[in-house]
């Protein structure tokens, strides 16, 4: 799995309430959720994000509630992969289960600037900042996690397996 896009950089403890505010949880429609992604943190994000872009954040990304709407909103907004120093436990599982790629790499987060062009090879764990030319090494996905993400999440994976 390879990704390439522009980096959108945020700080630490980005919680699920700013990723997708609870007032929009009356829908599960990914496209509707995407319109409000991160709006209480940065009203410009949804206007600037392009399909394939990359989210970069510091420690404890996705802390807060267990809402799977958070990774769904990020993915539907166009983000292919989130690189953070660390992820909140429930968000980490929700991201994989909803098919959003995530990588932990503190060195990359420190090195990547807002707007840098970044490429990611999730199979090898290599993150390259194409703007600065620097490369960083994250742990690659184990094969079963890669498969879940490639198949669009856990529900889609089992739908396919059970042929429903």
């Amino acid at each position, binding site marked *: 799995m390879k990704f390439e896009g522009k980096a959108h950089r945020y700080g630490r403890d980005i*919680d*699920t*309430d*700013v990723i997708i*505010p*609870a*007032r929009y*949880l009356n829908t599960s429609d990914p496209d509707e959720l995407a319109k409000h992604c991160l709006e*209480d*943190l940065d009203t410009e994000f949804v206007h600037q994000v392009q399909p394939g872009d990359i989210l970069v954040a510091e420690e404890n990304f996705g802390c*807060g*509630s267990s809402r799977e709407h958070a990774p769904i909103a990020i993915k539907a907004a166009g983000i292919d992969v989130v690189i953070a120093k660390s992820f909140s436990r429930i968000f980490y599982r929700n991201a994989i289960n909803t098919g959003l790629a995530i990588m932990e790499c503190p060195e990359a987060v420190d090195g990547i600037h807002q707007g840098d062009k970044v490429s990611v090879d999730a199979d090898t764990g290599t993150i390259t900042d194409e703007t600065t030319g620097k490369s960083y090494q994250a742990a690659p996905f184990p094969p079963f996690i890669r498969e879940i993400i490639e198949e669009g999440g856990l529900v889609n994976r089992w739908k396919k397996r059970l042929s429903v």
Partner: protein
Amino acid sequence: MRAAAEVLKGRVVHPDVRCIIIPATQQVYRQCIDEGLVDIFLDAHCAVSTPTCGPCLGGYMGILAAGERAITTTNRNFVGRMGDPTSEVYLASPAVAAASAVLGHIGLPEDLD
């Protein structure tokens, strides 16, 4: 609930404050009724709800308006968590929340007398 009732017994909530009491479960709700705590809350001019997540996630039953400030015994004070993004959420123990409801500002049970 007992800690809040101990503070609210014989007192009333400040007129500028709305005090909403929400039991977490049906069992706690029943216990509050059986132990007479609901009577204490109602006498203190509190609104007592059935068990619900309520305004904790900004859903309903008392969500915060723009600029409104809450002291709450829930566990998250993220931006916009309980309503409008410009509202403020302060987390506290039941005793401090109850004392603050009576005082009309954030304070301690010891500040009441």
